[in-house]
C-alpha cells in the first residue's frame, strides 16, 4: 500500500502543472480566455447537437463549446483549460507506463511534454478547445483498448473503434491508431518478422485513409480540412505548426521513453530525470513565452471591459499603461466619453491613425466591428451597431454564431421596436446558460413601448436615434454625429465625439462650427481640450487671449503661452512631449498622424 507522502508525491506533479496553467491563463492570459466565449453560441437544443454531430470531430466540438461558454468568467476558463491539459498528461502518463512497465520519474516528466505543446497551441486566440478534447477521447480510447488482454478482441476493438472515434473526435484520433500500433509492436515484437510488420502497418495506413475518404464523402468539406481537423482551429485554411508537433509528440515521446528505459541503466535514471526535467521545464517555459502576445491580450482586455461597461476600469488600466493599439485606444476614448471625460483627458492617451481611435472604420474581420460596434451603440447609432454585430458574427471563420452579437442584435431590435425580430433572438438566447436570465428579463419589454422608453439604457438610446434617412458614409461621420445632436441636444457622448472628431482632424474651423451644438449639455466648465482648441482659434486670429469670449481657465491660458514660447525655442518638437504631451496643442503641432 502506498504511504501518504508517496501518494502526495504521486499527485504533486499533476497538481503543480494544473496550478501553473490556471495561474498562467488566469493572470497572464485571462482575456484570451474570455475572447473565445464571445465567438460562440452554445445552445442546449437538439438541432445544435445534431448539427455538430454531423461532421467528423463534432463530438469533441460539442464538449469543447459546452466548456467554452464558461470562459465568460476567465478564472473558470483557466481552470477548465488546466483540467483538460492535466487530464491529457495523466492519460498519457498511464499509456507510457504501459509501454515501459515502469513508474519511473522519467515517465512522469516526459508525460507533460504534449500537454505543454497543446498549452502553447492554446496561446493562439484562434486555437480551439476542440483539439485537447479530441485528444482526451483518443487517449482514453487508446488506454481502454491497450488494456484488453486478448489479442483478437483488442484488434477487433481497435479496428471498430477507430471510425467511431474519428467521427466523434476528428483527425486527432489518428494518434489512437499510432499508439495502438506502437503497443502491438511492443507486445509482439519477437513474433513477427519485419516484412509482416510492414504489411500490418500498410493495412492500417490504408484503413485510416479509407475512413478519412469515407467521412469526406458524407460532408461538404475538403479532404485537407477533414485531415487537419475541421474545428481545431478557427481559420479553415490555416493550422499552426505546433498542432501537428503536439500530435507527433505523443508517438515520439512514447518511443523515446521506451528507448530511455531500454538503454539507460536503472542507477543512471536519476540523472536522466534531472536532465529531462530541466529540458522540459526550460523548453516548456521558453515555448510558452514565445507564444504569448501581450499586445493582443491588451486589446482583448479593453474589448472585454468595454463589453462589460467597465468604463472606470478601462481608464485606470490606460493610466497604468497607455494602450498600444488603435482598437484598445478606441475603448479608452469610449470609456472617457461615457464618463464625460473625453474633452478633458483624451490627449493623455495615444490617438492612433487619426480617427481610427475614435470611430474605427469597418473591416471584414470578426474583431474590428465588435470594437466599433460598441462605440456606435453608445452614441445612439444603433442601426450601425446592429450591422456591425451582424458583420462581426458572420465573419467568424469557423461559422459559429455569437451570443454577444445576438444579444446586441436583440437589444437594437428592442430599441427600434422590432419586437417580433427581437423575440427571435431572445428565444435563441434563452437556450444558453449565461444569457437566459437576461433574455427572459428583456422579453418582458417586448410590445411594451412604455417600458422600453423608461428603460435606463434602451430608453435613452431610443431617444437618441436619428430620424433622417441617408446612406451610412464612414468618411462623413461628423455629419452623422451632428445629426445625433440635432435629434437629442443632450447626447453628451455624441457631442464629445463630434468635438473629438474635429480635434483629431485638426479642423479647428469645423470644431468651432459645431461647438455651439453642445449648448444643451451642462458642463461645470468647458472641457480642457476644448478650451485648448478655442485658445488656438483665438490666437490664430491674432487676438489677445484676455479678450477671448469663452471662459478659459487661467492655468490653460498660461500653459498655452508657455507652450508657444517653448515651441518657438526648440527644434526637436518631440522634446515638448514631457511637458505638453497631454495637450491638444502638442497633438495639433507636434504629432504625426501615425504613431
Amino acid at each position: 500500500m502506498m504511504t501518504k507522502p508517496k501518494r502526495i508525491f504521486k499527485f504533486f506533479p499533476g497538481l503543480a502543472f494544473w496550478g501553473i496553467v490556471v495561474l498562467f491563463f488566469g493572470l497572464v492570459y485571462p482575456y484570451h480566455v474570455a475572447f473565445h466565449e464571445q465567438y460562440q453560441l452554445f445552445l442546449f437544443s437538439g438541432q445544435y447537437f445534431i448539427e455538430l454531430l454531423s461532421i467528423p470531430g463534432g463530438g469533441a466540438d460539442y464538449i469543447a463549446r459546452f466548456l467554452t461558454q464558461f470562459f465568460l468568467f476567465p478564472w473558470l476558463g483557466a481552470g477548465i483549460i488546466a483540467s483538460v491539459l492535466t487530464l491529457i498528461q495523466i492519460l498519457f502518463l498511464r499509456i507510457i507506463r504501459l509501454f515501459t512497465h515502469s513508474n519511473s520519474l522519467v515517465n512522469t516528466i516526459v508525460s507533460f511534454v504534449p500537454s505543454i505543446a497543446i498549452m502553447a497551441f492554446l496561446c493562439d486566440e484562434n486555437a480551439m478547445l476542440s483539439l485537447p478534447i479530441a485528444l482526451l477521447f483518443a487517449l482514453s480510447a487508446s488506454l481502454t483498448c491497450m488494456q484488453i488482454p486478448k489479442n483478437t478482441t483488442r484488434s477487433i476493438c481497435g479496428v471498430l473503434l477507430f471510425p467511431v472515434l474519428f467521427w466523434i473526435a476528428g483527425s486527432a484520433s489518428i494518434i489512437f491508431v499510432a499508439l495502438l500500433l506502437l503497443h502491438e509492436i511492443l507486445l509482439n515484437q519477437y513474433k513477427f518478422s519485419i516484412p509482416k510488420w510492414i504489411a500490418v502497418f500498410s493495412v492500417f495506413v490504408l484503413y485510416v485513409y479509407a475512413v478519412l475518404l469515407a467521412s469526406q464523402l458524407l460532408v461538404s468539406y475538403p479532404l485537407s480540412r477533414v485531415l487537419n481537423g475541421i474545428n481545431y482551429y478557427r481559420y479553415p485554411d490555416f493550422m499552426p505548426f505546433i498542432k501537428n508537433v503536439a500530435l507527433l509528440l505523443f508517438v515520439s515521446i512514447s518511443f523515446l521513453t521506451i528507448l530511455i528505459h531500454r538503454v539507460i541503466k536503472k542507477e543512471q535514471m536519476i540523472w536522466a530525470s534531472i536532465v529531462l526535467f530541466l529540458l522540459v521545464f526550460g523548453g516548456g517555459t521558453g515555448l510558452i513565452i514565445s507564444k504569448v502576445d501581450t499586445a493582443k491580450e491588451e486589446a482583448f482586455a479593453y474589448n472585454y471591459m468595454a463589453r462589460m461597461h467597465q468604463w472606470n476600469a478601462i481608464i485606470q488600466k490606460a493610466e497604468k499603461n497607455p494602450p498600444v493599439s488603435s482598437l484598445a485606444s478606441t475603448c479608452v476614448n469610449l470609456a472617457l466619453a461615457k464618463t464625460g471625460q473625453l474633452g478633458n483627458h483624451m490627449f493623455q492617451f495615444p490617438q492612433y491613425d487619426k480617427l481610427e481611435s475614435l470611430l474605427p472604420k469597418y473591416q471584414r474581420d470578426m474583431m474590428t466591428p465588435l470594437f466599433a460596434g460598441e462605440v456606435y451603440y453608445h452614441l445612439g447609432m444603433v442601426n450601425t451597431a446592429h450591422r456591425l454585430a451582424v458583420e462581426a458574427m458572420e465573419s467568424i471563420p469557423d461559422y459559429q454564431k455569437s451570443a454577444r452579437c445576438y444579444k446586441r442584435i436583440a437589444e437594437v431590435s428592442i430599441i427600434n421596436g422590432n419586437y417580433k425580430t427581437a423575440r427571435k433572438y431572445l428565444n435563441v438566447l434563452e437556450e444558453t446558460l449565461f444569457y437566459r436570465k437576461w433574455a427572459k428579463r428583456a422579453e418582458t419589454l417586448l410590445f411594451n413601448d412604455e417600458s422600453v422608453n423608461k428603460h435606463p439604457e434602451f430608453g435613452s438610446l431610443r431617444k437618441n436615434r436619428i430620424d433622417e434617412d441617408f446612406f451610412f458614409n464612414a468618411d462623413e461621420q461628423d455629419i452623422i454625429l451632428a445629426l445625433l445632436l440635432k435629434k437629442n441636444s443632450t447626447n453628451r457622448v455624441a457631442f464629445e465625439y463630434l468635438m473629438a472628431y474635429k480635434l483629431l482632424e485638426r479642423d479647428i474651423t469645423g470644431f468651432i462650427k459645431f461647438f455651439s451644438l453642445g449648448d444643451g449639455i451642462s458642463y461645470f466648465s468647458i472641457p480642457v481640450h476644448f478650451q485648448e482648441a478655442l485658445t488656438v482659434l483665438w490666437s490664430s486670429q491674432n487676438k489677445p487671449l484676455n479678450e477671448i469670449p469663452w471662459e478659459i481657465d487661467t492655468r490653460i491660458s498660461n500653459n498655452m503661452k508657455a507652450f508657444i514660447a517653448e515651441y518657438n525655442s526648440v527644434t526637436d518638437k518631440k522634446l515638448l512631449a514631457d511637458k505638453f504631451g497631454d495637450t491638444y496643442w502638442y497633438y495639433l503641432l507636434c504629432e504625426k498622424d501615425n504613431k
Partner: protein
Amino acid sequence: MRLYLSYIFLLLVLFSCSSKEEVSNSQQVSSLPDIQPDYIGVTVPSVIAPLNFSMADNFELTDFVFSGKGNTTIHLQSSSTPEIPINKWKDLLSENIGDSIKVEVSVKTENQWLSYLPFFIHVSADPIDESICYRLIAPGYEVYSKMGIYQRTLADFKQDAILENTLVSGSCVNCHSFKQTDPSYLTFHVRGDHGATFVATPDKEITAYSTKTDSTLSPSVYPYWHPSGDYIAYSNNMTRQTFHTRESERIEVFDFKSDVTVYNVKTNEIITSPLLKTENFETFPSFSPDGKRLYFTCAGPKNMPAEFRDIQYNLCAIDFDPATGSFGNHIDTLFYAEGMNKSVTFPRPSYDGRFIMFTLIDFGQFSIWHKEADLWMLDLATGEAKPLDGINSNDTESYHSWSSNSRWTVFSSRRGDGLYTRPYIAHINENGEADKAFLLPQKDPVNFYKELLFSYNIPEFSNAPVKLNIPEIEEQLMQEEKPSFSFKSN
C-alpha cells in the same frame, strides 16, 4: 423469459391506453384556436408531411382530433406540439383528396376542458413535385458565414445538403436553377476566390465556367432555363449595396447598370440583342413555357445611387427564336408598374403559360429588403394583374417559383419574425387565385423555426433528387483556369 415479455407487453398496452384523458364536460368556445404555425383553412397537396402544430399559448393539455370522410381518425393529446404519426396522416390525406380534414382542438386549463370551433385543412387533388430546394443563409449584410443549398422532400421531413460553402472557405453558393423543376438541367453559382458558375444537362457533365466576358457587364447571375434545355437566360448586373441609417430600412441593393443575356448551352456562347443591351436597366429574365418569349424587368436609366428611390422596373418581353437563337425586333411592356408608382421583380411564368407571378415593391429591384413587397399575378390571357391576397402578408413576400403542373407555388416570406425568411406553399387554382398558404411543415415546427438561425432563400420545386459529386465540384473549383463563356453578338 416469456413471462417477462408478457409483463412488458401488458405495461405497454396499459401505458398506451392510459395516456389519453377523456375530454369531458367541455365548454364550447366560439372562436377558432390560436395555433402556430397557422394551418387553419390552408390547402395542402395529398402527399404533404404531417402538419404538426401547437397552441400559441401554454395549456395543461391539448387534445387534437383529425378526421375526414374515411375511417381514419387521428387522436392526439399533448402539452406541447404532438407529432402526428406519418402513416396515419398519409391514410387520412389519401382518404380525403378533393375534400377536407376536420381538426378539432380542445384545451384543458384549470381542470376545465375548452373546445374551439373546428377548422378544416383542404386536401387538393392537384399533385405537387417531390421536393423543394433552397439555400439556407443567415440574414446579413456584406459578410456571409456558413450557407448551403439543400433539398427537402415534401412527403416527410428529410433535408439533405446538396452543396455547402464549407467546401471552399470564403465562398458563397447561390442562384440554383432547374429547368421547369427538372434538376437534371442544373445551374448554380459559387462566388469567392475560386468562384464559378456550374452548368449541367443530361448530355453534359457538370462543368465550372467563368461567365464574365469582355462584352458583358459582370459575371452572369439570376439564371432561368429555356424549356428546351438548350439555353439559359442570365442577367449581368453591376450591383452595389449600402446601408440606411434609419431603422425601418436596413440595406439598399441597387444596380448601376444591368443587361439581359442568353447563354447557348450547346455552343457555350452568350447571345443578346441590342434591345437588351441598352442604357436601360434590364434584369430578372425568364422564358415563356413555349420558349418563344423572354420576359424580363426593365427600368429607364437613373443616376445611381442618388436616384435609388426613383428607379422603377416594368415587366417586359421580347420574342425569342430557339431554333436560330435570335431575338425579336421590339420590346413589349406587359405590366407598366411605373404607372402605379411601383416596381416589378422576379417575373415567373407558370409552366402552363397562363400567368406570370411577380413581386411588386415601391422601387428598385431587391425586394427581400422591402417590407411592402407582395406577390402579384398577371393573367396573360386578359392582361389583368392583381395581388395574390390569399398569400400576401403585411411583411415581405419575395422569391417564388411554380410547381411543374403550375398548381402550386413556393415563396419566401418574412411574416414570421420580420427578418428570417421562411418557405410557404400555396395552391393556385385555374383562375390564378391563391388559396391560403402554409408554412413548410416540420416535426416540431415551433421549436424548429425558433432555433433555426438561417433564412430560406430561393425556394424552387424539384421533381427528382439532386445529387452532386462533391469531390468533383471541389476539384473543378480549385482549378486555376476555368472554361469561359464566349460572347456572340446577334
